């Protein structure tokens, strides 16, 4: 079939079974947009900012498990999208981002809206391409999807000059991908797996350390089985929330900087860490030399470079968590005796009793944690939960009762304020039957507030719950704790009228400051099925606790800090 480069893009998206594309047009990508106009195989969602297009594609990818796709123009369109690429790179989210570029003849001349896009995206993508001949497009696009979703997933950027989208060439998408230099290992070394399970059988205080890789590999069901079968307790990273259900008695909680006391103590006392798809991030480990000191480490990861990067592994296993966990179960069946760990479980139960995750109610103000728990009680499994970045994000990870993988969608590695709302739009597009909630802050929401228009236009009723503390709360908390309360540029007393702001775009706004008002607003927003802002006035000086001060050891937690 002889078709134009622009038509090839459409054909490739159809062949990849893309049903939703997020994007924003402009000069260099117009040939492709012209073909988008002519087709009706997939839906294009026009966001109101390129950053939001990429975040929406991320939300879509995380909720669906498919590759998210975004399209943008050259120059400023591309640079606006860079934050999204970086975010997806840090959190290993499979994306294909297609950008227009100035025509080949103008590349290198500082042409209008020319920027070295692949030069910029190189360090924040899994791979990228500048396509210089339409004949390469079918192969490149097919490789892009393949690379994005296989191995350790990640964003792939394809930059296409305008004349290449006009060029006619042969389109054949049937050739299987064959990249001689890219063959991710999936199955894991059998002997090493056996040795690891033997170590588990001999350990007294083993601990599962569950990471986001489990969710990427769709392994949460298998991990649930392995945990139940072995009777070994588990902690989750921020990225892994929902891998185990909160109802699972073996789930301790989240570990790390704002993890629970019991989770962090368990990690400090364990004699065998079983790390599955986790990468020993500094927000998780605290002081490295004290992390799981004295414990042996089993480390399963699809990315060899993640293994022994920060903590040397005694049992390194390169492979897809899903495959490896299945093989582990085969061996564990005969080797592991559940009863063996009963005293260890009791120790952990004691940690839990000593300092459970908790907060104190206030007679005057709503507590943000209450709001999150309340949404959990009301919607529980029926909602997908996104967040922005800050205190509200940590409280959500601590207090929302997650029951399944892909329920929690948040920017972990990059910590991108402005992620939550567009991501929630992508989540709603991928999973329309569930309520899409975005817990956000009064700071973060303004970083992609224009997406109200996208959500209203596309009838994607995201409910944004603004935990409004009139502060850049997380930064304010650090200033309180580590800068002697010098609250430099974090006071957000000056605020828009969030109710009117939502209304201005055709959404619905609520302003609440009591439990009754909150319940009524949430109920109304769910029933009306509309794009909503619920502006919840919460206690201004609430801090996220417990906390491991950065660089400190997990067992040295600040358990409470009352601020006046």
């Amino acid at each position: 079939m002889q078709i134009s480069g622009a038509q090839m893009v459409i054909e490739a998206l159809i062949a990849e079974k893309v049903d939703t594309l997020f994007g924003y047009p402009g000069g260099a990508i117009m040939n492709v947009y012209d073909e988008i106009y002519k087709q009706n195989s997939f839906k294009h969602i026009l966001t109101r900012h390129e950053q939001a297009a990429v975040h929406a594609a991320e939300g879509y990818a995380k909720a669906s498990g498919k590759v998210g796709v975004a399209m943008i123009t050259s120059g400023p369109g591309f640079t606006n999208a860079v934050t999204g690429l970086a975010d997806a790179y840090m959190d290993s989210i499979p994306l294909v981002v297609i950008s227009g570029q100035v025509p080949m003849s103008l590349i290198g001349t500082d042409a209008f809206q020319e920027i070295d896009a692949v030069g910029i995206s190189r360090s924040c993508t899994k791979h990228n391409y500048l396509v210089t001949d339409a004949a390469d497009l079918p192969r490149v696009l097919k490789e892009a999807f393949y690379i994005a979703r296989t191995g350790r997933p990640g964003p792939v950027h394809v930059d296409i000059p305008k004349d290449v989208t006009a060029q006619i060439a042969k389109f054949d998408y049937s050739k299987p991908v064959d990249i001689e230099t890219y063959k991710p290992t999936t199955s894991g070394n059998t002997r090493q797996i056996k040795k690891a399970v033997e170590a588990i059988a001999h350990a007294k205080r083993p601990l599962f350390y569950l990471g986001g890789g489990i969710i990427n590999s769709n392994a949460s069901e298998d991990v649930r089985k392995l945990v139940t079968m072995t009777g070994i307790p588990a902690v989750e990273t921020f990225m892994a929330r929902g891998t185990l259900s909160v109802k699972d008695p073996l789930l301790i909680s989240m570990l790390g900087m704002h993890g629970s006391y019991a989770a962090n103590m368990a990690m400090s006392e364990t004699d065998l860490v079983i790390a599955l798809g986790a990468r020993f991030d500094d927000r998780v480990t605290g002081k490295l030399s004290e992390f799981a000191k004295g414990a042996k480490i089993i480390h399963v990861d699809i990315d060899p470079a993640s293994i022994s990067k920060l903590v040397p592994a005694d049992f390194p296993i390169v492979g897809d968590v899903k495959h490896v966990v299945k093989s582990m179960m085969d061996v564990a069946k005969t080797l592991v005796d559940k009863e063996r760990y009963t005293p260890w479980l009791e120790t952990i139960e004691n940690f839990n009793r000593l300092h459970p995750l908790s907060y104190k109610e206030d007679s005057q103000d709503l507590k943000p944690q209450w709001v999150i728990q309340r949404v959990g009680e009301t919607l529980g499994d029926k909602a997908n939960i996104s967040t922005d970045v800050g205190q509200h994000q940590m409280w959500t990870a601590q207090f929302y009762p997650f029951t399944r993988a892909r329920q929690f969608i948040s920017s972990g590695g990059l910590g991108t304020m402005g992620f939550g709302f567009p991501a929630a739009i992508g989540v709603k597009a991928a999973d329309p039957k569930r309520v899409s909630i975005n817990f956000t802050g009064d700071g973060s929401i303004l970083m992609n507030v224009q997406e109200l228009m996208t959500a209203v236009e596309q009838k994607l009723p995201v409910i944004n719950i603004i935990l409004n503390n009139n502060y850049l709360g997380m930064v304010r908390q650090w200033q309180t704790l580590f800068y002697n309360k010098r609250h430099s540029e974090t006071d957000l007393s000056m605020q828009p009228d969030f109710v009117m702001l939502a209304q201005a775009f055709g959404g619905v706004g609520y302003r609440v400051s009591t439990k009754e008002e909150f319940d009524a607003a949430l109920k109304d927003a769910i029933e009306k099925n509309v794009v909503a802002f619920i502006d919840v006035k919460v206690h201004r000086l609430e801090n996220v606790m417990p906390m491991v001060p950065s660089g400190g050891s997990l067992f040295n937690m600040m358990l409470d800090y009352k601020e006046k």
Partner: protein
Amino acid sequence: MEAAERRVISVIVINEASVLSRITDLFSGRGYNITSLTVAPIPESRYSRLTIVTSGSVRVIEQITKQLHKLIPVLKVIEHADLVEKEMALVKFPITENLADISALCAAYNGNIVNVSEDVIITMVADEPKRVDYFLSAIKRFHPKEIVRSGAVALER
């Protein structure tokens, strides 16, 4: 901190646009050292071979190797243990220097005089990088006008 060691790594890559930037970006982005880097196409193939001399602790070198391997166009990463290593240097001297001595020194380091013009001569030596260092300090007294080193190339024995 573990001690930093000198290490030679060979990388076989698909010979395509921007592959070299991918490699150098990786080194600068992750704060790894490059002492020298050479690159040339491998004859009759679609690959190029890079030889990178770097330094770092055992852990850092292991990370470098793994991160290089993660780059999509990288076929093979060879962390040399038992290798033959050579480097070339070109040196320009005023023709008024003692040419016989210079020539004798060059010969001791697998080299010779490769070009003579009205007022300068150019010599070439090719030897282990360490020995090239010795050569370059030995010829200091002949007032070299310009020195260029090629960077090391290596083959596993």
